[in-house]
């Protein structure tokens, strides 16, 4: 797996713990949503930087209540046709003002990256073989948008009231 942030591949500095794995002495860790639920007291005492891996079936309002605890939230795309995490991402950003890393994990397509980014996802965990040379171009294929989203970019219905775009 490779972690992509912005327009480049970076080293994943996080340790992703199984539910039974011991908490390492140092370094940022992620745990599953259920482990965090059961042991959040211990986890917060032991780990300075904590992240959580959330299934896309968890009600986003529940995650929202806890966002201040996390520096990383990993959302799940069990298959590229399952779009629940798009809404989770937007609500975490727009409503709960989550400002940490929002990471896409699982099975998704290069062609969904821009949608994900617009929903507030800013990191992508992808298999190394998936990173083709045109991978990063996916984030810029479209640069005009018809609706507001978590990226706060201008949208056309409002933009055209002001001025025409530069040719």
């Amino acid at each position, binding site marked *: 797996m490779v972690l992509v942030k912005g327009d480049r591949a970076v080293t994943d500095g996080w340790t992703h713990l199984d539910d039974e794995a011991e908490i390492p002495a140092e370094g940022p860790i992620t745990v599953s949503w259920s482990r965090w639920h059961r042991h959040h007291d211990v986890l917060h005492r032991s780990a300075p930087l904590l992240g959580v891996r959330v299934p896309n079936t968890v009600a986003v309002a529940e995650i929202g209540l806890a966002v201040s605890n996390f520096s990383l939230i990993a959302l799940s795309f069990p298959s590229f046709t399952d*779009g629940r995490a*798009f*809404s989770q991402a937007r*609500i975490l950003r727009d409503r709960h003002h989550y400002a940490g890393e929002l990471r896409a994990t699982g099975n998704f397509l290069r062609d969904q990256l821009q949608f994900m980014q617009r929903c507030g996802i800013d990191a992508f965990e992808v298999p190394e073989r998936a990173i083709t040379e045109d991978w990063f171009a996916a984030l810029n294929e479209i640069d005009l948008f018809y609706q507001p989203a978590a990226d706060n970019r201008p949208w056309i219905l409002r933009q055209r009231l002001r001025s025409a775009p530069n040719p």
Partner: protein
Amino acid sequence: MYRYDEFDRRFLQERVAQYSDQVRRRLTGQLTEDEFRPLRLRNGLYLQLHAYMLRVSIPYGALSANQLRMLADIARRYDRGYGHFTTRQNIQYNWIKLEDTPAILAALATVEMHAIQTSGNCIRNITADPFAGVTAEEIEDPRPYCEIIRQWSTLHPEFSWLPRKFKIAVSAAIHDRAAVHVHDIGLYLRRNEAGEIGFQVLVGGGLGRTPIIGKVIREFLPRQHLLSYLEAILRVYNEYGRRDNIYKARIKILVQALGIDKMRDAVETEWSAMDHTPLDLQDETVAEIMQHFAPPAYAPPSEDDDARLSAALAADPAFALWFEHNVAAHKVPGYAIATISLKPAGKPPGDATAEQMDLVAELCESFGFGELRVTHEQNLILPDVRRADLPILWRRLDAAGLGTANAGLASDIIACPGLDYCSLANARSIPVAEKLSLHLAEREHEIGPMKIKISGCINACGHHHVGHIGILGVDKNGEEFYQITVGGSADRDAAVGGIVGRAVAAEDVNGAIDKLLDVYLKTRTDGEDLPATYRRVGAEPFKEAVYGAR
């Protein structure tokens, strides 16, 4: 009608480039078919029984003459010289090559057209009353709102990977010509007591194997909240809609499971929690879009208009018949709305040849303002014909095989492509429609308004559930049979038809329909349509007529 500005044009160029690159990656093997499939679907490209099918979007059924000429050109250059107009007011081509699709989309973009979201589990083409903006019986022109929804839904980052497809219909008229009740979201434009414009919002309607009539989730939604409320509904659906079973994934199943009251609570809770200010429509935004739909320069009626029309009606009974059925009242004196039937007896419903499209393009310029509409009943509309021009228009249409006087009658049948094209179908639809329309053409004027709808499988693309008479193709051990329903309606009194009895063989369809029609003619009271008769007398007389007394 809506014309693209620099934003729309640039966006569409970017989108064509994006799709073209997806095709390139598929052809070079970088994308597997599994990966490519949802991408091509979101661009209207299906793999059917014999070839790819491309469905081109016609937003709320509105077309310009030049756009229609381009559709004709594509039919000639890339297909077999014809196209098929669909129940989503779109057009589809059935013999397309994958390699040609980037060029087709580039060509479409030159006339401000595309195939975005005509398929896939996303928000589909917005449909609307094809008489929008010209009928006297509407509250306000709904097209600006359709256009606003179209733009908002285009490549929506959050709602492009829904549990299932999502269809929105809009109407502002007394008569529902958009089947609003059988959409995932239905919007009836209305005014509140203060005279403000808003919408009655319906949710959870749909056809397919579980036909459900939509329920009211909000009696009056002020227009400025249109988009935020749609987002709230979509968000609840995206989170809670089922994804474990494709047949239970539409929003209607969620609404049915929760009940409309709990669904309303969920949507209202989401709507109050979200910040609507970014999405709230400002008056200037609506006004800006409305400018595109400003009425054209209608000419005042001249004194001898009516005399010319009356003379033609008296002189030519064939024209008089067409006038009676295919011409509707216009809101501007001296003008009429003309329906061009794509249902000549014995021909596939909704098909038009490239030559016919070219002719209609010319006619909508000569007899109108260069615009036309596609109906969900698979016909074309000339929205602005001077009444005095109707006789000559009809002669031109008739000479091209487009003058069939059957709009709204029994041979004006909706039919899906069926097993002749479609990989989902269980049975053929087109030959059944062809034989039935030939058979009924003689007596349809005696019958009066009658909506017959045929689907070749349970997915119900032919809307059979809401036909006054519905015909559903089923497969029984490799043989095609047809199940018949009666009493359905897609109008304001929307209802799902009742099953008459066991399915009949293809050769028995015409006879069974005759018997149903006999019962209706014998039983109806003055002005009563078939759904009304059915509501009054129930299914029994119809069952007895087809299958005998029990």
